[in-house]
């Protein structure tokens, strides 16, 4: 897995174009299903439609986050630039999904629980802390400077966040024993068939979108790096040339 992928010359390929088309078609299908095919809920009315975005976003937030954690470990163990790039790309997409999760969650929460935000809700608070950690992770990545130093710093944060998050979750759980959150309504059989189907479609579409943006983000970073590596040869030649011009006056 650590072997560098063949250097891409641009960020698209036939696979990603197909993926992209599938995402567009999927989103259209999801909108149609979500607004017209799925019935409104007895208690939640139209607000229920928010879960078609909320549930997939939440799931892929955590998938992205786990990807970043794995990438961080692989950088620290093997100094794998491939994994470091994956970790960074996944974190960016993860922050997007995480923000989307919290946004749709609180918009949904307003009519359903009669509040935008509830501090006693374990998953809500844990997800917020996760978002804050990932923002810290990205801010360290964006600082620039030495690439290896940046990768190492980011990787340590990635690992730290991954081991701290279960403790955050546990602490919020103990903090307030009640939780407003739906106890896995996917499995308790109360959902209408069409609602369940739409959620599954949402998961598939979000999965495709995750893969599509991960590949593109990875390739952009990889190409930037390739550019810098070829820059290095140029920089080395320029650096040596300094020596010849300055020979006389030293």
């Amino acid at each position, binding site marked *: 897995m650590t072997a560098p992928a063949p250097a891409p010359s641009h960020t698209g390929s036939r696979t990603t174009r197909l993926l992209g088309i599938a995402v567009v078609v999927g989103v259209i299908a999801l909108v149609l299903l979500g607004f017209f095919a799925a019935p409104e809920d007895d208690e939640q009315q139209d607000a229920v439609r928010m879960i078609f975005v909320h549930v997939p976003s939440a799931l892929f937030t955590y998938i992205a986050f786990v990807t970043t954690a794995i990438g961080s470990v692989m950088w620290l163990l093997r100094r794998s630039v491939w994994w470091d790039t994956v970790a960074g790309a996944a974190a960016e997409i993860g922050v997007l999904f995480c923000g989307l999760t919290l946004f749709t969650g609180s918009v949904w929460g307003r009519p359903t629980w009669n509040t935008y935000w509830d501090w006693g809700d374990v998953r809500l608070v844990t997800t917020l802390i996760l978002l804050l950690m990932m923002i810290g992770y990205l801010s360290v990545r964006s600082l620039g400077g030495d690439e290896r130093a940046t990768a190492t710093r980011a990787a340590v944060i990635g690992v730290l966040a991954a081991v701290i998050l279960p403790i955050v979750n546990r602490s919020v759980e103990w903090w307030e024993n009640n939780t407003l959150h739906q106890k896995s309504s996917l499995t308790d059989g109360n959902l209408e068939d069409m609602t369940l189907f739409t959620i599954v479609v949402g998961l598939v579409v979000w999965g495709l979108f995750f893969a599509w943006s991960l590949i593109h983000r990875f390739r952009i970073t990889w190409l930037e790096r390739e550019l810098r590596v070829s*820059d*290095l040869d140029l920089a080395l030649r320029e*650096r040596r040339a*300094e*020596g010849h011009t300055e020979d006389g006056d030293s």
Partner: protein
Amino acid sequence: MSIVRLRAAVALIGRFPALAGVDLDVDGGEVVLVQGPNGAGKSTLLRLCAGLLRLESGEGEILGHDLATDRPLIRRSVGLLGHDTALYDDLTVRENLDFWARASRVDVAGVGAAMDRLGVPSRLHDVGVGLLSAGQRRRVALAAVVVRRPQLWLLDEPHAGLDPSGRDLVDRLVVDAAAAGATVLLSSHEVGRTLELATRRVTVAGGTITGDVSDVR
């Protein structure tokens, strides 16, 4: 025995190739003067030899240890005087030297002698380093190198900021170190003075070695 052996050594500072392919061999007991204009790569060369920088490409051995794999070993066996003095402002001169001696696992008993050799008067021993002048501070930093009794001395502009008697002290220090069998690499802008004690003069420019004259005495 070869003390420094560099082959096509490239080292980056950030993304900048401060050393752009250096070949250098230094034998035991040599006193090598490294000269060159500002930004030529002199300090980077000394820091690379100290094991503080990663070798981006090329290969190198310092004191028989591989620069790619054994940098911790290299770091422990060299003495580097850099631009920073690595002294704690709020500790006294003696406390600073004691701390670095203990941290380096060398005998603290050598601290007094080192302060004497660098001409740090006893009235300053218990003064906070933050109160010292730049020149005095530099002497204390040199004393910290002396305490370590390194096999390879890497002195980055050791004469800078010192008064004439301080510069003479540095010269004597280098001559004594070489006489005791140690190897010295020093960079300096004071070409005339340092030539007298150097056995060899290496010119650095553009991150490469552009001149190498032996038996300059």
